[in-house]
């Protein structure tokens, strides 16, 4: 049974998403789509993001994932990741170490990253672990 707090929160979010929903069904949609992942947003852009990313997306995940990520909004998203490359290099050092350890200790020769988000993981290892391993 959902709590009263959860119901109130959902109702509040729905109300906040109404302007965004109106924008989605208007000719202005194209102008707002690239702003979906912009770090700084106007109130209208926030409402649009709320509607698209938190409500509409879940009605058809594969359709909207392709639509959002393959277009300009996805470009902005990847640019954000790329701009944080140095921060990520430190932040994710444990994860990169673990990944490297698994690859090397098991003698793996073919490694695939699905969702390479601006080359984040590949670009985070400039060091050459061995003569043969170029980790990005």
């Amino acid at each position, binding site marked *: 049974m959902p709590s009263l707090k959860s119901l109130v929160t959902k109702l509040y979010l729905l109300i906040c998403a109404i302007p965004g929903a109106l924008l989605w069904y208007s000719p202005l949609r194209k102008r707002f789509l690239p702003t979906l992942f912009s770090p700084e947003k106007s109130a209208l852009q926030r409402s649009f993001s709320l509607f698209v*990313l*938190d409500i509409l*997306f*879940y009605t058809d*995940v*594969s359709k*909207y*994932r*392709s639509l*959002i*990520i*393959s277009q300009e909004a*996805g*470009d902005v*998203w*990847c640019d954000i990741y*790329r701009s944080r490359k140095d921060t990520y290099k430190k*932040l*994710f050092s*444990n*994860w990169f170490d*673990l*990944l490297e350890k*698994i*690859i*090397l200790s*098991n*003698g*793996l*020769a*073919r*490694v*695939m*990253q*699905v*969702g*390479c*988000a*601006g*080359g*984040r*993981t*590949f*670009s985070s290892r400039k060091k050459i672990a*061995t003569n*043969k*391993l*170029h*980790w*990005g």
Partner: protein
Amino acid sequence: MPQISFIGVDLNKTTIERNREVYKEITNIEFVHGDVFVRNFFSEYKPQLVFTSGTAEYFTENELKTFIAQAKKEGVAFIIFREPITTAIFDYLHETRSKPRGGMAFNHNYTFYLSQFGFQVSESVDKTSTKDVKDVIVVGRRNSVD
């Protein structure tokens, strides 16, 4: 040690093109544009290890199962998920059904699904975790008898 080849797959074509340009001097990294649920990259590239970092959270529960099943079918030895879980709405120890977590993402029990498909699983929590969001690193290793 053999030359290690890295393949990066992404839905975003611009990113793929930029990455190709940035890493053009590194010959063992390849970037490929496409949707992993449309094109069978596992069959094409025969990776031994497949990993996601902040990507599988955007899969549905069924897509996650398809992803693991496809990887297993194509002989992938390791699948690693490094993905966030919102602890306030998802009990990773007990919940097995995926739940939307907002912002296009889902909470999934990666450990459960990898186990369901016969992978030996080890899990850890990354230091990047916060009070509300746990970054789990789940390593699935294919059983040698499979």
